[in-house]
């Protein structure tokens, strides 16, 4: 699972959970890939993400220093080098082993062999 996926996921489907976002993330193992950078595609992706969740994801792999703590006002004003940092976090980081955790109920969704398992019944709506 690329770090990008974390940005799209929530635990809203659980009982008594209203927001369920961003999911807490623990990363026990990840690989860094070298996927070709494309300025346009990166901006399209950044337009779709929630910044606070991206910060959570960057912190989970101890790479918060790659990106600013505040959301940049306009993506297309960033230099290629700045965008490369975002590209690296979203596309190059593949989480192999870890956990996604519901921020409200603390329900744990394990990630194994790169595949998160969101099937949990304990507290479903």
């Amino acid at each position, binding site marked *: *699972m690329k770090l*990008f996926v974390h940005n*799209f996921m*929530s635990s*809203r489907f659980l009982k008594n959970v209203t927001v369920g976002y961003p999911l807490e993330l623990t990363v026990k193992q990840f690989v860094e890939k070298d996927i070709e950078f494309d300025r346009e595609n990166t901006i399209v992706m950044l337009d779709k993400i929630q910044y606070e*969740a991206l910060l959570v994801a960057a912190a989970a792999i101890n790479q918060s220093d790659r990106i600013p703590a505040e959301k940049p006002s306009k993506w297309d004003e960033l230099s290629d080098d700045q965008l490369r940092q975002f590209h690296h976090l979203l596309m190059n980081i593949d989480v192999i082993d870890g956990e996604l955790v519901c921020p409200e109920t603390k329900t744990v969704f394990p990630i194994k062999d790169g595949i*998160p398992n*969101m*099937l949990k*019944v304990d507290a479903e709506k």
Partner: protein
Amino acid sequence: MFPVLVVFSQSHLDFRKAEFEAICSLFCIKVDNLEDHLFVMNFESHQDVEKLLSRSVLVKFALDLSLEVSTYNDLYEKIEKFPNIIGKYDKLNESFAMRFFAIGKKKKLDGMERIKAFLDIVQFNHAPISLSTPKNELYLVESYLNPTDEQPSKIFFGRMLGEGRSELKTKYNLRDRCYIGNTTMDPELSFIQANLAMIRSGDIVLDPFVGTGGLILPAAEFGAFVMGTEINYQTARAQGKSSRQGVKIRNESESIQANFEQYKTEQKLLGIMIADSSKHGIWSSNAMFDAIVADPPYGVREKATKTVKNKEIESAGDYIRYQQKEEYNLESAFCDLLNLAAHILVKKGRVSFWYPVILERFVIMSASVLIPTGCRYCSENLPQHPAMELVSNCEQSLTRKTSRRLLTYQKVRQPINSEECEIQKTGVSHYRSFLFTSKIN
């Protein structure tokens, strides 16, 4: 504007128009109404033709059309009258080859003889011949109305502009694919589906019933970033029984990831999750997709299930916890899918999915026995959603009694709170029982 002869493949006729229109719409190419497997259309630029050919699996090839006539006498007369027709290809520094192609009749046609006869009358004085690497590949195309006709109804002459993408069905053939399941989509149809969903490079695409990834592989081939959810733990992790004949257990090298690696598109795979796609809340409110492609399980070769609450869980170790699943009513499965699409698609985004139907002619034959009236297929009975517009509906026949339809909807606006998908009794929910219990007397 210049005329181009577009020659179509003879397979999947019902998908031809829809695929052609979707690709033209994707690249903003103006289209006329196409009529037949041969079709002359005016294009504004060569780039437009190239774009069309870069995506279509049902277009065989396209010619820059010089002449369209009914008899060879007409052909030769026109060539004599307008020397430029040949003249523009008869240059010292441009090699050429003559080729022949016939449609509507294959037997007893001698292409070499046709080419010889043509070159006996039409003289090339400057251009050198090169059969292997010609600069200009010139085509004589004959079209026959009936295979028994002696004379063609139409003859075309023009220069080859390029071929469509029919090679993709060979490249993605299931025999050589690393990981397949019981219901992995035919590769040609999976590419047609990607075209109908108007998937473009850089899009984010979801398959909520991803299986072994057969529908998102074409999306990745076309440059999109892809994601999938799968409810079956063993399918998602490529464990358990193999779907291949003679192979018992899936081996360790099989996985969805490995499929992407095989076609060198692994950089496009965002992730696969084990999740219940009927739970829309697994997606956050900012999760927006450009397209959804799906082949929901019809409950025949793959079970249709969703998770249920308050039932006991079988547990085996820490990670594997099988959740109780129940049969997923097919009508609500399709409603859920359309509701999901209405919420998580961008505006103008498309969802394209397969929808099994019981054929009307069979229902009439055995109506009294099995199917309550109103349960058979008719176009008014398809799933409907006020925010989603049906843009195409193509049929692939499966058996004498059944077929499946590839339905493609486009999101026209954001849904208002209470708006939900509506579906009338279509027989979809009877699909399985119908298939297994009915007998024709």
